[in-house]
């Protein structure tokens, strides 16, 4: 594949983000071609969500540069926001609006025609099994409903690149299957999907390529088919790099 920056849907070079004395992300370099499902893995607090924020212009990097669909990511680039769909880590919904109002507002903010917006919203709600809960206030909605609502909002304007932070967290198996099918179909149509997840089985089945970030640094970036070739599993590879927390002596558990 050519290394020309224009061919990459996502192209990050040396991305670094420092908060005071804490370096959350250090020199992250990765390229994702168009139409690929790319998984970004790592332990809790390793810098996954910060990287997503840097790639989507929600945070300005301390050093380095990222391009998405060929555009340099900047915190004030509104055109870029129209090109991408974001499912943030903390769903970022508005507690006192209903699920339907979220989609209504979202469609209008992205400049969609009202009829088109309504038709798309209805289809997305049906696909995500959210039709029954459309009049529910987000404040009262369950975790899974909020996640689905945020996902529908990320998809409504038909983005070219999707950034999904933990999209399967708290989702029921039926909807999870629907989301997986949808993401695969989107990738076939040329949409790039950048997702973070802790569910390695889903990543193995869904993603074509993945990167592993540990303590803010990308320690491994390869295709899922490389795993099969090497006769290893994603879990083994993950634990090899990220390790496991020390298993302490928990003998007291279960003995009363």
């Amino acid at each position, binding site marked *: 594949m050519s290394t020309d920056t224009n061919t990459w849907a996502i192209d990050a070079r040396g991305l670094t983000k420092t*908060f*005071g*004395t*804490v370096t*959350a992300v250090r020199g992250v370099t990765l390229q994702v071609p168009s139409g690929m499902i790319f998984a970004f893995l790592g332990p809790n607090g390793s810098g996954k969500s910060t990287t997503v924020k840097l790639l*989507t212009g*929600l*945070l*300005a990097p301390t050093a380095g540069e990222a391009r998405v669909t060929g555009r340099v990511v900047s*915190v*004030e680039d*509104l*055109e870029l*926001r*129209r090109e991408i769909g*974001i499912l*943030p880590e903390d769903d*970022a*919904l*508005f*507690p*006192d*609006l209903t699920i339907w*109002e979220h989609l209504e*507002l*979202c469609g*209008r*903010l*992205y*400049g969609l025609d009202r009829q088109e917006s309504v038709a798309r919203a209805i289809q997305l709600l049906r696909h995500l099994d959210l039709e029954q809960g459309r009049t529910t*206030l987000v*404040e009262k909605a369950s975790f899974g409903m909020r996640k689905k609502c945020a996902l529908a909002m990320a998809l409504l304007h038909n983005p070219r690149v999707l950034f999904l932070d933990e999209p399967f967290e708290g989702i029921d198996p039926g909807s999870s299957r629907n989301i997986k099918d949808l993401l695969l179909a989107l990738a076939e149509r040329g949409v790039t999907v950048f997702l973070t997840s802790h569910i390695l089985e889903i990543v193995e089945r869904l993603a074509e390529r993945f990167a592993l970030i540990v303590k803010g640094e990308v320690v491994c970036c390869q295709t899922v088919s490389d795993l099969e070739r090497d006769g290893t599993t994603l879990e083994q590879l993950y634990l090899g790099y990220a390790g496991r927390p020390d298993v302490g002596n928990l003998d007291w558990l279960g003995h009363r």
Partner: protein
Amino acid sequence: MARASLIFRYQWRAFWRRVLRTGRVKFYLSVLALLGWITAGALPDRLSRAAGELAAGQTASMDRLLLVLCVLWLVVLGEHLNVSLSNDRLRRFPISVRSLLALKLSSLFLPPPVWLVTSVSAFGLSPLLSARHPLLGSLAALSFFGLTIGVRVSVSQLLDIARRRRRLRFAAAAFGAAVLAFAVASLQHDGSPLSASLIAANPATLVTTIAVATTLPAIIVPVATLLVGGALVWSLLLWSFTRGLYDEAPEQTAHRATSIAWLPGRLGPLIQKEQRSLRTVLDLWVGLLPVLAAVALALSTSLSSAVRQTIFVIVCALNANVTLNCLGLDRPAGLTRYLILPIRGKDLFLAKNVGVTVLVTLPLTVLVAIGAWQSGVTQLGADIVVVVVLLLAHFAWGNVVSVFEPRRAEPYRFAPSGDLLTLLMSVLIGSAPAVTVIVVLRSDSRTTAAAIAAIVLLNVLAYYSSLRFAGSSFERRIEFVSRRLG
């Protein structure tokens, strides 16, 4: 800007849903009634007096009126709106920074008390029509209100930038002290050099100077000052807004986990948690101001026990948002956590009360020590009794109010809600036993000691009963409390 107005329509809807859900309507109604009553009683007379003075080229009444309006703006804008469509959640949409700022500024006008202050400010401009330059004067007054709003929002935004909170705490305190000094100097107007210099530095005088100016240079200087001030405030507003929007700090650097006092026992960690969160409530810091003033006064003169003990009462009244609302900082998930923990409701309230006591009594201890140094050990005992009775009474009533009329409190914000009359009544109930003790201490009766012992005993009993009652009520009413604080 079209996007900002679109979002504002949803903001309006969401705001009123939250107001209805959290019971804030009662607070707004009581504030409107109180402000409306004061305004209707005092404003017409002040307006006509200011108009008469301005026609004669005098400005004192108008200066005071503008200052009062400025303070009113600062107070009503101090309410944390906790709006549903907040900027951090809107950032992922294709909306420009200026639209987000426009949305933020327009959202300031959502609460009804701001409508009232806007109307009063509009009426407040009417005396300027009698001045030599009515149009210029009115424009200057509008700029003055704009500056006030800009400064208030900028300070609020700077406080929002987590990394700067520690440093800005002192800047915010200095700002508050400056406003207080202006208010005191302008309202006292005792002719002292300090009072005169403070009045001269009061930005409200710029407006009246323009309105009554007799020469061109007398207009140019204050107009230029207002313009430069406006440019500076606008720059600060935009800078702090943009900075707050994009410059995040992770949790671990934003909050250093320290507490003032380590306490032993099963409830120790819970008390430490309370101390950490309570320190972020601005009311506690405001409560320091009278203590600082008293300490400054005590350095030059001997404080009488009556003054010292009255300050104890004032400090507790200023801290009413904490002493009478001890669940205010909790969120629904946190309340559920309390139920999961193997502690009873009364233990929870005890931990919260001890947490508040540690923070409130620290500054009071300084005053008590000064009292002991200046007036002897007998006064030390009297002061301790007053403080103990004050806290017991506040907590005894406050624990019950916390369960039946909880009000949401916000860190680094003044966020009053609920019924203002309930709050005022609670302050009276909480202060009454201590005031009685102060009065009894001054009586020369043989039964003084017995009366004070009886008051202390009654308060101990009331507090113990309140702990048990509020604790068990909390366990039964957690849904209601969660809804109010959600």
